[in-house]
């Protein structure tokens, strides 16, 4: 009976999140509340037991990075970079398109995607307005670049943070395995956007001149704060690079960095904390409890039995499982939020590993088994890149389209998917080739 109640809570919560008829944070918290009040999972398990509990490493890594980005965003550096790059491009729209995509991708790899697009979209609309161009090519390129860039690192996108935390992967693991794939994907993406939009982006020389006369230095509001924020961010990234060697969890580094920046910046913590994305944090908390409940009742075990029957993974080869995971994750993440999807997929893959792989002396010998690793990388690539497929696939898409609409440039669902689906398929095909060549040929 408990099994069916937990499954019902899980499915109804999923359904409501997909339908978007109710705020997703409310759904996750109600679902979590029901799991607890019906004693499917008790509070001790939900809060403290590693197997079922809230992943505090994910929660505090997100909070820490949100604090750092919030303070960095106040300096005007994002707008400065955009204007500076437009000037370096000599006001030529196709070059600006490529530069903006690169800035978005690099910033998204190290910072929260939502903050990145939130700060870059207004300045993009401004440049497009000055150049008397339709902002659509710039906006859609930035959305895609944000999700592709976010895929590159452990801290770039929530699915990576979640996978890294549960599988105990380091920042350098992602740099070694995922970043090369993202380089190829991003290079093909840049070629694609140039082919798609390059010819449409031509303006007269006198209009381009307007860009060259802009004074980007006026956008930096506080040089002292900028120096402090960039120094802390630099040290935090160094900390991430060495966290595996130093035996610190990423959340420890992010939280300490955030605390130091709060002290040295002299920013009022009340203001900074008020501006964090608390609904996202509570969405995670609720989801972890819901997923903890269905793990406890055995639903995830049953689903993993299905995955095993369908993809027939072996202890020495999981090629079919990898490729199935990649495409299934991409399609699912385009249709629904990738956070609940990944939260459910992680225990499912873990269960599969425990069922198929020989039991080792420690957990790492199973969940970090060399046969299983391509499956984790497939999940990360599929879940992050799949978010590009539809307007609701990732938070960056929702935020950018919302801002564009507010600024008088509404982008329809149809127009978005017309460009987004082919680009997403292209990125997944490249991921597929990467996984196949890197892990199954050599």
């Amino acid at each position, binding site marked *: 009976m408990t099994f069916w109640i937990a499954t019902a809570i899980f499915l109804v919560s999923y359904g409501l999140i997909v339908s978007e008829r109710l705020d997703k944070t409310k759904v996750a918290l109600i679902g979590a509340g029901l799991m607890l009040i019906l004693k499917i999972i008790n509070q001790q398990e939900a809060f403290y037991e590693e197997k079922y509990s809230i992943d505090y490493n994910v929660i505090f890594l997100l909070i820490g990075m949100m604090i750092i980005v919030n303070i960095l965003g106040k300096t*005007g550096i994002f*707008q400065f970079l955009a204007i500076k790059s437009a000037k370096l491009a000599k006001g030529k729209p196709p070059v600006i398109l490529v530069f903006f995509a690169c800035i978005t991708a690099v910033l998204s790899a190290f910072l929260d995607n939502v903050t990145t697009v939130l700060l870059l979209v*207004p300045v993009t609309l401004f440049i497009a307005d000055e150049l008397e161009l339709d902002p659509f090519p710039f906006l859609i390129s930035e959305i895609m670049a944000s999700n592709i860039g976010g895929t590159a690192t452990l801290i770039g996108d929530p699915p990576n943070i979640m996978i890294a935390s549960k599988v105990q992967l380091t920042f350098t693991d992602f740099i070694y395995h995922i970043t090369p794939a993202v380089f190829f994907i991003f290079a093909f993406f840049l070629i694609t956007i140039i082919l798609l939009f390059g010819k449409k982006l031509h303006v007269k020389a006198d209009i381009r001149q307007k860009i060259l006369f802009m004074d980007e230095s006026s956008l930096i509001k506080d040089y002292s704060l900028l120096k402090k924020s960039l120094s802390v961010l630099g040290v935090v990234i160094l900390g991430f690079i060495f966290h595996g060697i130093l035996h610190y969890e990423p959340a420890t580094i992010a939280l300490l960095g955030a605390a130091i920046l709060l002290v040295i910046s002299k920013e009022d913590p009340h203001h900074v904390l008020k501006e964090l994305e608390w609904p996202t944090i509570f969405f995670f908390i609720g989801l972890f409890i819901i997923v903890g409940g269905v793990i406890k009742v055995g639903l995830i075990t049953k689903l993993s039995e299905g995955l095993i029957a369908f993809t027939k993974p072996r202890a020495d080869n999981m090629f079919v499982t990898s490729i199935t995971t990649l495409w299934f994750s991409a399609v699912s993440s385009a249709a629904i939020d990738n956070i609940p999807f990944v939260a459910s997929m992680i225990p499912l893959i873990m269960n599969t590993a425990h069922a198929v792989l020989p039991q080792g002396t420690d957990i790492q010998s199973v969940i970090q088994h060399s046969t299983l690793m391509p499956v984790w990388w497939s999940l990360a690539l599929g879940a992050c890149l799949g978010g590009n497929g539809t307007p609701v696939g990732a938070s960056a898409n929702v935020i950018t389209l919302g801002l564009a609409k507010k600024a008088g440039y509404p982008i329809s669902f149809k127009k978005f998917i017309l460009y987004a689906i082919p680009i997403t398929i292209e990125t997944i095909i490249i991921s597929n080739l990467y996984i196949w060549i890197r892990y199954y040929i050599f």
Partner: protein
Amino acid sequence: MKVKNIMDTSPNLIRTSDTFESLIKILDEVKYNVVFVVGQEDRLVGIVTEGDIIKVLIPKYITVDTSLISVMDVNYLEKKCVECKNLPINEIMSRTTFTVTEEDPIIKAAALMFINKIHTLPVTKNNKVVGVVSRLTLIKHITKVLAEQ
């Protein structure tokens, strides 16, 4: 006392098919800072205030990121004015508008102005605009009431 007793019977009217340029000319000549927009058979369809005119000239992305003002062209406003010259009124006006009929009591006009923080109200009869009452009209009426006492 009723609205019809104090209203000004010469409201500023403009048609939906008119342009930004004709609107500015009207506003330059009239005593109220609002113009009522009328469609077929002089039926009220909207209102244009000074705020609506400024809204047309300001890029919307500025409301999201005010820091961009510092890199905007110093002649942006002037260029935008010329660009908007032939913009139709229905792209400038606000559609929601409060009205009173000439048979309504004056207190209704006063209450609508106070609650909704507006300065001028169109007076209608069978959906046609027949007059206008403003805060100034109300003050003049109050002065008259006290003088009569």
